[in-house]
């Protein structure tokens, strides 16, 4: 299935606080697109709009699956997951009192994912052998890096075509960030995923990015057509490196 995502001119936020202003992005099939921006600029809000956790005030979010277009605005999170979009939330948000395997099963809560549950479970255990060793351990008792593995694996369990990843580097040691980013690339290649990743860690993010956007105060400030364009951008130096 070839899925792509187009966000057209959305305004959105929390109650009367408007975070996103007339924001548009596209993610084409098979791409890894990064959303760069520091805290509080609307990266997570945009991902929440796509997954249906927040309803945008205006605009459309078009999911295109093999030419069949649906507007995701107004859809519930369950419907969005069923449509093939899965999110790895910021800060992992595991179910700490459940075991690793129970967390993974919850990733496959929707009916269509249940059918492929054993296949996907084997797949994520192959990618993250550590999780197989620890499958009966409570998720809350694991290290930050292992918890992030569970969060990403749980996202894969819903058998998505588009994977949204919200700040996979939060709270991880630098070598683990590098490992995690590498795993996301591996998952993407093996599962033919389309990936939209929000990140603050610029240096790690551009390692796997095909293209990217820089988001500042809820607006797209810069659209980069390639990873090189991102790497050589003046604005990035200004926002990230303070030079």
């Amino acid at each position, binding site marked *: 299935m070839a899925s792509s995502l187009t966000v057209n001119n959305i305004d959105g936020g929390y109650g009367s606080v408007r975070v996103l202003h007339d924001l548009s992005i596209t993610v084409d099939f098979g791409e890894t697109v990064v959303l760069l921006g520091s805290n509080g600029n609307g990266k997570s809000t945009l991902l929440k709009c796509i*997954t249906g956790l927040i309803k945008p005030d205006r605009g459309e979010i078009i999911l295109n699956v093999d030419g069949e277009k649906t507007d995701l605005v107004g859809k519930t*999170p369950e419907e969005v*997951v069923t449509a093939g979009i899965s*999110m790895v939330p910021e800060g992992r948000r*595991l*179910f*700490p009192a459940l075991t690793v395997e129970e967390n993974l*099963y919850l990733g496959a*809560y929707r009916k269509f994912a249940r059918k492929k549950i054993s296949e996907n479970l084997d797949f994520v255990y192959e990618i993250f052998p550590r999780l197989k060793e620890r499958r009966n351990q409570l998720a809350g008792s694991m290290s930050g890096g292992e918890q992030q593995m569970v969060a990403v694996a749980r996202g894969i369990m819903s058998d998505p075509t588009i994977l949204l990843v919200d700040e996979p580097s939060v709270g991880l040691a630098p070598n683990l960030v590098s490992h995690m980013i590498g795993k996301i690339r591996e998952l993407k290649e093996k599962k033919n995923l389309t990936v939209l990743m929000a990140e603050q860690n610029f240096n790690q993010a551009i390692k796997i990015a095909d293209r990217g956007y820089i988001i500042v105060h809820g607006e797209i400030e810069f659209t980069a057509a390639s990873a090189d364009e991102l790497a050589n951008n003046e604005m990035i130096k200004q926002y990230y490196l303070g030079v």
Partner: protein
Amino acid sequence: MKLNKFWFIIAAVFLIGIAFTMVADNEFYFYATYAVMQLMIMGIAWNILGGFTGYVNFGSGGFFAAGAYTTVFLHRAFDAPPLLIAVLVAPMVCGLIGLGVGYFTLRLKGVYFAIATLAVAIILETIVVNWEFVGGAGGYYLLIPENVVFFDSYIEWLFVLILAITLIAIIVSRYLNSSKIGQGLAAIRDDELAAESMGVPTLKLKLISTTVMGGLMGAAGAPFPYFITFVEPVSAFNLLVAVMAIAVPMIGGTASWIGPVIGGLLLGTIQETVTVNISSELNLLIVGVVLVGFISLAPQGITGLYQDFMRKRRKGND
């Protein structure tokens, strides 16, 4: 194997209960065990919303009273129909109330939800106090039927009825706990936003949870007017009912279906023993002491203690 064992125990308990009515003469035993089982059902019901789903609810007493008043209403409106009808109707009425209340309050979280449920109980009480048809503030007397089919006395019939309701409550609670629904509820309890992004239909599951909670509370309340033969709003809607319903799973353990069963047996038995042997005032004090003891020493309840024990033993063996 495990499944068969469960159903075997359920069937055995029911048959032993029926055999008990054939053998025992002293009616006190039926009154006492009735009270224990009523408490157990309330604990099981509260635990479905409070324990499995993580929504602490102070209004469960309101659903219990609504069940009792459904019976009163049917008694008055249809000239004392058989109690079995009330026992079937009350859970539906209370389940519907649960569904409606859930729809309006489940957006709230934590302490706000708890306060809202308390308010629901007060609203229900106010309605009953001002509703003359069911006796209003003065209460309503019910005469228990003189002729009882099959059993020696009416309390024996009530005993078998509440036993059946208890076993059904256990079956429902166990099903919710161990099925896919139970996984979803546990996810809501642990992290509702994460559950939602995983595609768990949170609103639907929470509504199932409140509906079942209301229905079981109503089922516990339905035979109550026949049990005490006089119902009035202040005691039926007493906050104590809600507190007892919370105490049972707190003592037994909230995470699994077996917790409130153990808690109900333990707390109910202590209460009945103390009420008879010492005094009914002291009984309340003892509930308080037991509850404080458990919260400070074993916050996961008896099932939590058992799990800790098993974990330590397993470690010892390795």
